[in-house]
Structures are given as C-alpha cells and as structure tokens.
C-alpha cells in the first residue's frame, strides 16, 4: 500500500497541465463517480473515514450527507485560505497539481448535487491562484466543468475568489461572509453551512487537501482507503514541517507515523547541538508538546489524548536556543492582530494577553501576571463566537502551564539586568 497519493508525481514537469494530468490517469475517478448514484458516492466518502484536513478534522462524508436533498441551489466552497501559521501544504497542492483539486471538487459537487462552486484562496497566493485559473479554463474546455459535465447531465461552475489578507477568512463562516463581499466575520452557528451557507443556500465547505483526496478515494474504493492509516485517522496526510529543523517542507505520511520519524526522519531534525524545546503539532493554534512527546504516533486521536490537536498538520519545531517568552508573544501578537473583533472575549482577550506578554518580555510583569494571564485564557476558551480566541488561548495556556519556570526566570533576569544597568548608570 502506497503512502503517497496526493503527492505522487508532484514534481513531474507539467503536471499542472491537463494533458499531463490526464496522461497520469487524471479525471478517471470523476468518470467513475459520475457513473455512481449520489447516495452510493456519499457512502463511499463516509466509509473511507476521511477526516477534514483544514483543522477541525470533521468526517468529510458525514458533512456531505448533512446537505439537504432537493431542488434548492447548493454550493461547494473550497477553503484555500491556508493562513494558520506553519501551514503551507495546500499551496503546494494547488500550485503543482491543480487538476487533482478540480477533480475532487467536481466529485464532491456531484455527490451533494451542487452546481456552483468557488475556491476561496488567500490573496497572498497570487501564483497559485493564477495556476488554478489556468487549470479551470482547461477543465472547462475539456468538459470537466460547465454544463453537462462529460455528458452526465450534471452542471458545475467553478471560479476562483481571491481573498485579501485576513486569517479569520479561513474560518468557514468568516470565509462565506468574505465571499459574499462583506467583512470576514464569523457567523453564529447554527445554522451550519450545510444548511445555510453561501447566499443562505446549503453549502459544502472543505479544505483543499480534503477535496484533493477524493479522486484517490474514488479510485481506491472506501475500503482500501480506510486501510491506510490508523483507527479514526484514515489515509495519508500532508505535514508541513517548519521552524528550527534542517529540512523544512511538506511531506506526505501515513497517519499514525511516529512524530519523531517525521521531525527527525523526514525533516532532518534539529540543528547541530540543539534540542527540541517545544513543538506545535498542528499549527500555531495547537497546544504545545515537548521533547517528551516525540514518540507519540501522529494521528488525530493520539494528539487529542495528549491534550493538543493534529489541526492542519503543521509541525513547528522550536529548539532550546529560543525563549518560550518570544514564542508566546509571537503567537499572541498574531492572534490579536487577526481577531476579527466581533466577539468580546477574543477581541479584548487576545490584545490584553499580547499586552501582558509584552510586559513579561520587558520585565515589567510579575509572576502574579502569569496567573492573571492563565485565568484570562480560561475565560476565553469556549466562550467565543468562533474558535479563533481559543486558538490563541490554548497554546498560550499550555506554554504558561508547561514552561512557567522559564517565564518567571525571564522576568527575573530582565529585571536584574535592568537593575544592573540602572546601577551602572548611577555609579558611572
């Protein structure tokens, strides 16, 4: 059984063109899907065990089955916002194998009977958006998109919608508002997008990687796909490894691989003489793990059990040359900057945390501030409109809990340095 599906042939020259993609057997799965009754196709997706690759890990087939049946206009929206720090896998998929994604979109749209689809891509990905647009034009030309796809009677339009720089537009309802031309504020849920999504119509929204997997599931069949990976974490997953490792990049793994093997085996491990201090297993919003956790298998359930999450599959490695204070401040600064401002705990809590951490950094905080900060994280978690607030509060909370000593030492040290400097100034 291969552990390379999405990334197979990824560097083949010209793979992004429809000719090469077709030569590699591309769009074969679509033909197969179009010949399958919708309900059966959804069963296949359910049976595959595929969980969403965007961060929340919700079973893809189940979500597709939530869309109501009937004549109403339905939509498929592809989440290509990829803004979670440390995550860059969708970028490579779109840039190098756009037709794999398009094929997945058409399969998904056919399955839920949607006739209009959009790819919402972050505005920073200019090149990737251009590649997608070219590929979409090719797909229209060959009849994979547009009216009467491959003579099946099924119709689908697909367009690229470029964002303009806002992390919150990766949150699915913020994305929908943004796609509707509004500020990208998340919406109250319920109603969920499956019932009332884009333009109030039932909408299936999935991550790029999730949808790029569909052609492979259709090709292999649900059983064979489900055999890849481990219990509750079927299939292969793209992992973006970055930070203080020798060989950062995207790797396709079979879920359940040991974390150590990913970080050391694939990404080349830490630099000479360095040890891992902490690592984020699923983007900067996942609670941090330490070097003691390196032997954990990398899958959804294990990560959850370890008190963190697999998230988007972005591992960020921080070695012992870096202060945890800096890491925490970076994280808080990012989320404070990206909070949309709609709900109170997130808007105020993220910026307050950032301010407190700034004081920790410059030594003007006290250990009591660390307690306040920890309690502020508690007051954010679970109380916001969407989970952006949690995305800061969870890792910050975990850092304070796991590295409290280092925070306190830092405050001490900076204080002492400042005192020395003042004394030096007085005496000199």
């Amino acid at each position, binding site marked *: 059984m291969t552990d390379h599906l999405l990334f197979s042939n990824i560097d083949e020259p010209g793979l992004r063109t429809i000719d090469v993609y077709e030569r590699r057997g591309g769009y074969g799965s679509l033909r197969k899907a179009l010949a399958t009754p919708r309900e059966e196709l959804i069963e296949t997706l359910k049976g595959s065990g595929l969980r969403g690759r965007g961060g929340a890990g919700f079973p893809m087939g189940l979500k597709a089955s939530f869309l109501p049946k009937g004549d109403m206009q339905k939509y498929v929206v592809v989440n290509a916002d990829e803004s979670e720090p440390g995550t860059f896998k969708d970028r490579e998929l779109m840039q190098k194998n756009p037709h794999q994604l398009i094929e997945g979109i058409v399969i998904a749209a056919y399955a839920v009977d949607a006739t209009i689809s959009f790819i919402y891509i972050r505005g920073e990905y200019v090149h990737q958006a251009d590649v997608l647009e070219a590929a979409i034009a090719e797909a229209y030309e060959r009849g994979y998109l547009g009216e009467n796809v491959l003579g099946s009677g099924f119709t689908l339009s697909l367009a690229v919608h470029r964002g303009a720089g806002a992390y919150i537009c990766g949150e699915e309802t913020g994305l929908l508002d943004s796609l509707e031309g509004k500020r990208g504020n998340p919406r109250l849920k319920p109603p969920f997008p499956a019932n009332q999504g884009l333009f109030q119509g039932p909408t299936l929204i999935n991550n790029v990687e999730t949808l790029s997997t569909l052609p492979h599931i259709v090709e292999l069949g649900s059983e064979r796909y489900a055999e890849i990976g481990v219990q509750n974490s079927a299939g292969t997953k793209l992992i973006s490894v970055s930070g203080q490792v020798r060989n950062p990049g995207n790797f396709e793994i079979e879920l359940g691989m040991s974390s150590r093997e990913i970080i050391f085996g694939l990404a080349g491990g830490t630099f000479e003489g360095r040890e891992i201090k902490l690592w984020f297993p699923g983007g900067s919003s996942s609670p941090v793990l330490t070097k003691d956790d390196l032997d954990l298998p990398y899958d959804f359930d294990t990560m959850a059990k370890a008190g963190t999450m697999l998230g988007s599959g972005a591992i960020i490695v921080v070695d012992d040359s870096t202060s945890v204070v800096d890491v925490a401040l970076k994280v808080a600064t990012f989320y404070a900057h990206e909070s949309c*401002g709609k709900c*109170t*705990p997130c*808007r*105020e809590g993220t910026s307050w945390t950032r301010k407190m951490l700034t004081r920790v950094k410059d030594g003007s905080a006290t250990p009591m501030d660390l307690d306040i900060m920890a309690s502020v994280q508690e007051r954010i978690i679970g*109380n*916001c409109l969407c989970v952006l607030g949690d995305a800061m509060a969870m890792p910050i909370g975990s850092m304070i809990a796991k590295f409290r000593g280092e925070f306190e030492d830092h405050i001490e040290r900076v204080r002492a340095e400042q005192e020395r400097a003042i004394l030096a100034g007085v005496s000199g």
Partner: protein
Amino acid sequence: MPRPIREMVTFTLDGREVTAPESTMLVDAALEYGDVEIPVFCYEPKIGPPVGACRMCLVEIEGVPKLQAGCSVPVKDGMIVHTNTPRVKEAQEGVVEFLLINHPLDCPVCDKGGECPLQDKSFGWGSGISRTVEPKRHFEKPLALSPLIAIDRERCIMCYRCVRFSQEVSEDHQLVLQERGADTFVTTFDGHPYVAPFSGNIIELCPVGALTSRPYRFRARPWDIEQAGSICMLCPAQCNVSFTVRDERVLRVLQRDHEGVDNGWLCDKGRFAYQAIHVDERVTEPLIRDGGTLRAVPWELALETAAAALRRAGGRVAALAGGETTNEEGFLLQSLVRDALGSPDVDSRRGGTLPLELHRALVAPALQASVPDLQYAHAVLVLDTEPVDDIPILDLRIRRGVRHQGVRLFVATSRPSSLDDRARGIVRYAPGAGEAFLAALDAALTGEGDVDALAGAAGADADAVRRLADGLRDAGEEVVVLWGERLTAGPRGADAARALLNVAARLGLAGRDGAGLLEVPSAANGRGLREVGVLPNAGPGLCEPSAEGRDADGIAAAAAAGEIAALYLLHTDPLLDQPSRRAWGAALEKASTVIAHAAFLTEGIAEHATVVFPAESHAEKEGTVVHPDGRVQRLRRAIGRQGDVRGEWQVLAELAARLGADPRVLTASMVSQRLFDAVPFYAGLTLDEIGGRGVRWPEREQAGALPTAALGPFALEAPPAAATANGRLRLGAFRSIWAAPEVAASPALSFLRPLQRAELSPADAERLGLRHGERVVVASNGHSVSALVHLRQAAPEGSVFLESGIAEHSAANLDGPLVEVRRA
C-alpha cells in the same frame, strides 16, 4: 403570509419550570416568562436576528458542552437551563472584565450615566475588581459623527447595534465598522457625516455613552428628568413617543415601542424637532394685525376681534384644518363653522374632496390594512407615495418585511423611490397620471382592456405594468397597497379613487385578513379629520351634512372671487400646504379676515392673518388622533403650555359660545366624549380604553356603524392621457421629510432644510445642455422658480421633479403639467 403561530413549551430555568412560546429566544423567555434577567448587550430583536457577538448572555444548557449565548438559543421543550452556576458567573465576569479593559469609566461626565446598560450590567454581573494595569486607549472625544450625533470611541463596546441598524434596519449603509480586531471602530466613509432620515435611532440603541445626542448633551441627568408618553404629530406615521421633560421643557424625544405603529423607531424629524417647541420664533401669545403688523394682544381682545369678524362675515366663512389638528379640534371647528356660522365650507384635504361614497369606501373596515400587515403581506405595492418623506417610519416597516419575511415589494410612482432598490418590480408613470396607470394595471389584471393604450396614456411602460400585474397575482393572496392621498387629489381624484378600488377588487382585497389598502394622508391626522367631519361633503362619522360645501380648491376660488369674507385656518398655511400657491395667494389677499391658529408665522400667516391664536405644540396637547390604519391614538400633555398658549379646543369652544352656539364643553375629555358620541363608529370608545396603545376602530364591533358604500369594481371612462412633453418637461412635485416649519425652526435640524433642486434624468439634461449642480430656472405660464440641477440616473425621461412645501421657490408656484427648464 401567515404570521407565526407559536405553541407553548416548558423548560427548566434555574430549577423552576417556565412556560413560554416555542422558539422565543432564551433571554426573552427567561425575562418575560421566568422573571430571570440574562444580561445582554448586542441582542436587540428590533434590529434583526441575534448575532451573538458580545457573549454577555452565556448560559449553561444541560447536554451542551460549551456555554451557549442565550440571546440566540430558542427555547425548546424540556430544555434545562442554568443562569447562575459558578461556570456561568465566571464567564459573565469574564465578559464584563473584557469590556471594561478599554472602557474609560468616565461615568461622572457621561450623558448615559444613570441610564446605562453597561453600568447596570457591570454592577450586576461584574466582579467589581479590575485586574488590568494596562493603559486604556485614549482618543479625542467626543467627536462629531453628524450635526446631531456625537461619538466617543473610547466608550464603545463594539456591540454592533448602531452599524447593524444602518445596514439592516434603515439600510442607508452609511455607518460601518472599519479596521479589525481591537482596532475596529464605528465610522463613515472618508469623513462624511452620518446624515440619514433615521440616524438618531442609534443614540437610543447604543448601550453605552458612545453615541450621544448633540442637542441633548449635558442638558440633564436621569434623576432630574421625567418621561411623558404621547404621540408624535409631525407626520401621519403618528409614532408613539416619550418626551423627556425637565422644568416644563422638552429636552429629548425617545421612542415608545409600539409594534402596531412604529416598531420602536423614530425619524430624525420626530426625534429632534422638539426644539421648535422652545424657540423664540414660536407664537406664544395671541396676535392681531394692527396697521399692517401683527401685535401681541390680550386673549380677550383677540377672541373678541375674531368673534366680531366672524359675525360680520355673516356666513361667508370657510375653514381649513391642517394636519396637526386633533379629532376634537376638528370636530369643534366643523361645528363652529356649520352650526355657529352657518357655512358648509370646511375642508382638511389638499386639492379637492371626493364624493362621500368614496370617502366611505376608502375607510371601509373590510379594506383596511394595518401597519403590521405591511411586514407580513405576500406583496406590498407602494403607490404614488414616497414613504420616507410622507410617512417615514413605514419605510422601515416595508424594509423589514422585505428583509426578514420575504415580502415582495412593488413600487409604482412617478418619482424614483428610495425603495426602488428593494423592489421586485417598478413602474414609472407621468406625474399626475396615477389614474391612467391604475386603469392599465386593472386591464392587465383582468385581461380586458387595452393595456398598451392605457399604459401609454399613463406615460408608463406597458410591459412593466404587465409584469407588475403578474407579480402581484403570483405573490399570494395577501397584498397591501400603500397609497398616497395625492393620488386622489385634483379634478379627476374621484376617478383615480375608483380606479384604485377597482384594482383592490381585482386583487380580492376586501375582507381578506392581512390584505387591504393603507392610505398615506397628506397631513398627520388627515384620516381623523375626515372621520370627524372636516370635509365639505361629510359631517362627523362621514354622515351626510345638512348642506354640501366647497372643498379647498373651491374655497380658494371663492375667496379670490370675493365670495368669502373670513378664512379660518386651523394649523395650516395654505401657501405651504396646498398645491397651488397662487390660487391661495389671491384668496388670502382678498379675504378681509384671516384667523389662524399657528405656532410659527410662516409666509401666509405673517402676511395675511388678521388674528393669530398661538397653537399648542404636540407636547402640550390633549386629545385623540387617528392613525392611517384606523388606530385611534391619544395625545397626552407632557409639558405645561408655553407662554400664553391656551388649549385650542378651549379657543374653538369659546368662539362658538361667543357666536351663540355654546358646545358646553368644560374639559378636554368632555370634548372627546362628545366626539365619540357623535361618530357612530367611535361609539363607546373611552380615553382610558385608548390609553397608551390606541384602539383600531375598524376592528371594533361598532365599525359596522360606518355607512356602507360600494367598493367596486366600477365601470370607468377612459382616463385622459398624460400631457406630452414636446420639448418641455412634465412637472412632478414632492414634499420631503424635511419640508416642515418645525424643521426650519429647530436649530439642530435647520441644516436639513431643503433647498430647491430640479431632479432630472441624464438624458434630459444632455438634451437641454445642463450639468449637475448648475442653476436653472423652471418656468410655466410666466411663473418661474429657481433650482439647482440634480441629476438622477433613475429619474424618468421627460419629467422634472421639484420640492413643494418649502418657503421659497416651491413647486407650488408653478402650474404644470408642463414646464420649461433652462439655464439661469
């Protein structure tokens, strides 16, 4: 559209069982049915569905892992809710703490202090201690958001109410949030002020002191004011208001939420024109003309002068009542003129009366739509009226129906409407061609008659008329036609009214719940005045009068011809209110006596009145009025009468007594009682029953006492074709919301006083070689007004629209139907 009928469900609230209508939001159900307050900030159902932004209302629901926002969870049977567990308390303390991190806590100098939800909620649900040492944001404050509203951004807690109002209620989309996260702020585009007909509502919506009224700022504190509920009389919408009073002065006007009237909103005229009550220009003592100028005199002299003049006139008297006249005053007026002076000439309409039959038909209970019907109908047709100008608050009601209930809106007007953007279908017809348009619509609905020819006569697009007919038919059974009185003005008014009844008949509106006609009278109490007999051809209760008199146009002509010696003007200046300024100029000139009740010396009064009685403001008045949908509402005195002002009912009664027909009324409520006795369909009403919410008489049993009338369909002759322009333009007149003496007199609002502008289509402008903003002369028959060109893409080719109801360069100076427009 059927209004939701809701079953009752039972849920558990803090260990007690509470029963509430299904799908009520938890916070409402808890408060109304369980007497438990769950604190809220962003939740305001008047605005629209909940947004769940502030997170103040978090509660614990068994079986749901996360705390839930009670503002957005509908109650369900068997639900178990906790609002006071340690977890909930911790979360609520958290939200209060977060909200106060950046809030300046400058309560001692804040207008909102003492009536501030943030204060109350911090006290009730906050921890009382601050853990933050971070400096708070500091900004310049307060800043002007508009001439009426100040904004203090430090105080804002980002509840979104104000911007949601602008986006979702008034739909003016001028007030927005900019930037993101903690930097987000409320603002407008590029420094433009937030000026819109309903802008003032955001002051009341703001749960903190971030948005304050500039006219009210620092005038009072909550503990030295009183609230007095009454009715706004500045337009037919008759919104329910509450006057904030301090030392017998009105300092502020707030909404007094009435679902059947205003939904808790006010327009800026109603909200800010209270200033006109206390300005120096207001007439507060009786005046008589003495050697060309009006001079203050004692009441006795004024009354005797008036009585003597009326006596002298010997029956050659005519009276007009304007919109602010109450039912009681109108009743006494017609009685004075008819019984004491023996003249049949009284009117309250603009541009002529209708046959009595039609007056009765148009108020027939079977045909009356109510205000909420606008919100729940399948379709609404806005016909020959611009709600935002003529009855502003209904503009919001229509928008709400379209936005939240999916009401299909159609607009048929001459002038482009601000509702066009929300309409499924629009028909434009030539100014004054309402009758022909309705005939065309009738033909399209029945399939009989020549739609093309009739639409052609109306200057309308026949296909648009057909689409409208289809649209109305397809929408569903409940159709509400909101139509403007001006449709039935003028010599062919009766034909237009019959054409309207025909359309109502084709649509089957009579007797259908949720459907019907809703007239927008041209004056605030227009409907009431007709019902109490201020019509030349109807007495109280729309009964037949002993003699039929002349209508307003007839009175003007007769007065100009010297047939009328004395004119009695109750709250009206015909130069501003009547369609032809010149006819009335001549009439006033010729009449030897002009007696007026007026609050301001507008042109006609200042130049022609011989006796002026100071008029009460609506905050000083007592009595009743009738809302356009038949709701009898009650005015209550909020403040003592200013200066030497007397109750006008007293003045009218006193004059009648002096003229030998003492109505024998000693108190205001006695007048009301006499009125209820005199109008059969009001029979049995009492002021107590009317109370603060009003009573819709068409829904009462006594409504059957209205004499019946044929409701159509009628066989009609072909309507005349609208004038063809050949080089000239058709003149359309409109009266903006701001064209009112109270607006001009209120310092805070005077910046909104309209200046004449000529609205033109780009095609006409090009043909005439005119540019936007250029000064032009609009002329007909040797008369002209000056205006600035205002291009509008949506303006129909061939017409020009001018403002009436303004002091200078009013459209009423011109005769129409065709005018010439040329560069000044």
